[in-house]
């Protein structure tokens, strides 16, 4: 009998939202316990800071350039490599419960399997989809073709109106404000906690586990849609954290002149978005101007986000108890992570976009190996990426990582990381939307984050960002044009280009906005 694998992902969760990572706003005792018993990664980065490319990296073990999903709205080909298929081929039962998003959501023609699947059930035609034999899918709301939305529409139509409409009448990401502060993507949601998608994901995960035989090996990707906006958790839980008492994040420069001076030191699209002059992508409300963000709105968004993180932690605790009841506790590997971060007030911004700073790039990653392996708890400070998850899953299952995986199995401590060359982690961004394009490539190595821009609507290809995380952990001082940093910059840029992954040919096409 092999090790069981529970891969837990959230959506758009910052590193500092976990207690084990120093977070103080929300309580996350379940993940904190996993970290204390296992391996906590202090410098894990996604290979893209938006959902579809990042999730495709988790599934394929490849960088976005290689798997080809360069932005939300570019579907991952149905025959793309999949770690789930590898595990299934090795005898694992496989399931994905919650948010998949390898294919576009906005799909009235139901062209994509994720969207059409819920019309027929939870088992894909042909038996497998991307290596999963069971899929029950959800996203951030109650509209659309996915399983959770269909269940809510059929069983609890009275609750639908409580949720925030993610898109507005123009099918843009909604800018409407709500809550106490009129913050964007915030809404008072009277839905019963039991009906909220966080609980549904845990419930459906447990229901699937209940179908398995005690001796079967299994891999379940439990994928929570939260704490991604909208921030509309069940109102019954919002009182856990009074936003009035929430301190402003250290990344939020409250003084406006200071804030804008920091933005002006970065490539121009930062300030242009802040001012509402340039919207480069579909990842934030086009009709919202970040410069309007107030300190109280930052507080309320952070409070609601923390509540959503608490609910996820508690839902995970329920699933782990069920695993223990099934007698699998000693055999269970748990990996907890997310697809990317959230600006959440840093630099006076919310949401995400082409901004390769810790708010979006430094993500929570905890691996609690199966207790029977007697792994020594550790904190890994060396850089790792989501690209390393697929080979890790293979290693847990005792199978060799296929040649097409580009990462390596996660190190168990810094010495292991050094021995196996975990020196750098790469992140990339390409967006092209109605005439506006932005392209950047980023390397994190040693204590540096270095981003090189390629020519686009707002950049001529000479711009960049360079931050010294030791001296400037908030990444406020861009050293790209600092003559004293010329040698460092040159070395990092050369390293960045030397390690670019091969690009998929032909390039995949944007087929939907998200």
């Amino acid at each position, binding site marked *: 009998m092999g090790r069981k694998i529970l891969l837990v992902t959230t959506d758009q969760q910052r590193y500092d939202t976990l207690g084990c990572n120093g977070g103080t706003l929300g309580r996350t005792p379940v993940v904190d316990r996993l970290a204390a018993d296992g391996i906590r990664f202090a410098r894990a980065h996604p290979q893209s800071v938006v959902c579809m490319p990042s999730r495709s990296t988790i599934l394929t073990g490849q960088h976005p350039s290689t798997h080809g999903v360069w932005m939300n709205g570019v579907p991952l080909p149905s025959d793309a490599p999949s770690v789930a298929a590898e595990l299934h081929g090795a005898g694992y039962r496989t399931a994905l419960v919650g948010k998949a998003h390898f294919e576009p959501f906005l799909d009235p023609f139901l*062209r994509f399997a994720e969207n059409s699947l819920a019309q027929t059930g939870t088992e894909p035609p042909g038996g497998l989809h991307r290596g999963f034999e069971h899929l029950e899918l959800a996203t951030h709301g109650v509209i659309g073709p996915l399983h959770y939305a269909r269940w809510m529409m059929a069983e609890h139509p009275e609750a639908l109106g409580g949720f925030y409409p993610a898109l507005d009448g123009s099918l843009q990401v909604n800018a409407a404000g709500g809550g106490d502060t009129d913050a964007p993507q915030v809404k008072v949601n009277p839905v019963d906690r039991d009906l909220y998608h966080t609980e549904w994901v845990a419930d459906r995960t447990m229901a699937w586990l209940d179908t398995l035989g005690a001796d079967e090996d299994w891999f379940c990707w439990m994928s929570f849609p939260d704490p991604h906006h909208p921030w509309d958790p069940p109102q019954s839980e919002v009182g856990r954290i009074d936003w009035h008492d929430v301190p402003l994040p250290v990344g939020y420069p409250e003084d406006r002149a200071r804030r804008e001076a920091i933005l002006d030191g970065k490539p121009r699209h930062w300030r242009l978005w802040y001012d*509402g002059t340039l919207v480069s992508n579909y990842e934030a409300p086009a009709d919202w101007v970040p410069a309007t963000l107030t300190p109280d709105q930052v507080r309320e968004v952070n409070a609601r986000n923390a509540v959503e993180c608490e609910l996820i932690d508690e839902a995970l605790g329920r699933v782990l108890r069920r695993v223990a009841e099934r007698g699998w506790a000693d055999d269970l590997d748990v990996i907890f992570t997310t697809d990317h971060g959230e600006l959440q007030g840093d630099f006076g911004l919310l949401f995400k976009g082409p901004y390769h700073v810790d708010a979006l790039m430094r993500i929570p990653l905890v691996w609690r190996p199966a207790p029977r392996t007697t792994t020594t708890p550790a904190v890994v400070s060396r850089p790792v990426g989501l690209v390393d998850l697929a080979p890790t899953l293979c290693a847990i299952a005792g199978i060799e990582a296929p040649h097409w995986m580009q990462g390596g199995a996660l190190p168990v401590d810094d010495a292991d990381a050094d021995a196996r060359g975990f020196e750098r982690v790469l992140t990339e961004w390409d967006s092209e939307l109605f005439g506006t394009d932005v392209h950047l490539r980023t390397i994190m190595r040693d204590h540096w984050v270095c981003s090189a821009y390629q020519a686009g609507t707002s950049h001529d290809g000479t711009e960049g960002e360079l931050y010294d995380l030791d001296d400037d952990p908030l990444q406020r001082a861009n050293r790209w044009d600092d003559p004293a940093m010329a040698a460092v910059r040159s070395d990092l840029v050369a390293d960045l280009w030397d390690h670019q992954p091969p690009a998929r040919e032909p390039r995949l096409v944007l087929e939907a906005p998200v």
Partner: protein
Amino acid sequence: MEMAGWEGVVPCQRPNCHDHCQRLPCRDAPLRPSVPPHRAPTVTAKRGSARHAIRLQSAPDAVWALLGAPERVHEWFPGIKSCTVDGIHRTVVTASGLPMPEDLVTVDPALRRLQYRITAPMFTEHLSTLDVHDLRDGTCLAVYAVDAEPATMALVIGGAARSGLGRLPSLLGLEGHPAP
């Protein structure tokens, strides 16, 4: 003064903008003159365009026989459950059950051009144009272009049309005869 250095600033009029935002330039304002644009910048457009094409190892008339027949759209365009044509009016029902009433604007066999507008309320504007070009070397080029407001629908419809164009070699029996 915050506005120093700006010219022609338009106060923000959007519903979600208030308080100090009224003193800021909105998306329609010019860029800061001290930072010249690399290329003409755009904001996220309300109206979007998309265009896709496929070159086929076929005489154009054979391709036009399928693409130029309004009542046959469900044969090549993915995700259409049904299609009815009544004069210039066509109604398709998508796989998700969404009815899409359309007006046929142009059906020109000589030009091999078909144009239609989706008139469903969710569209402020829509025009799709299908052209089949004779490349005079035994091949032809089928081009689908879409303009729509909301802009996002241009991507959605264009993406589906692209998938449909990709099915043409199979539907027309051209597999094994790739265009150069």
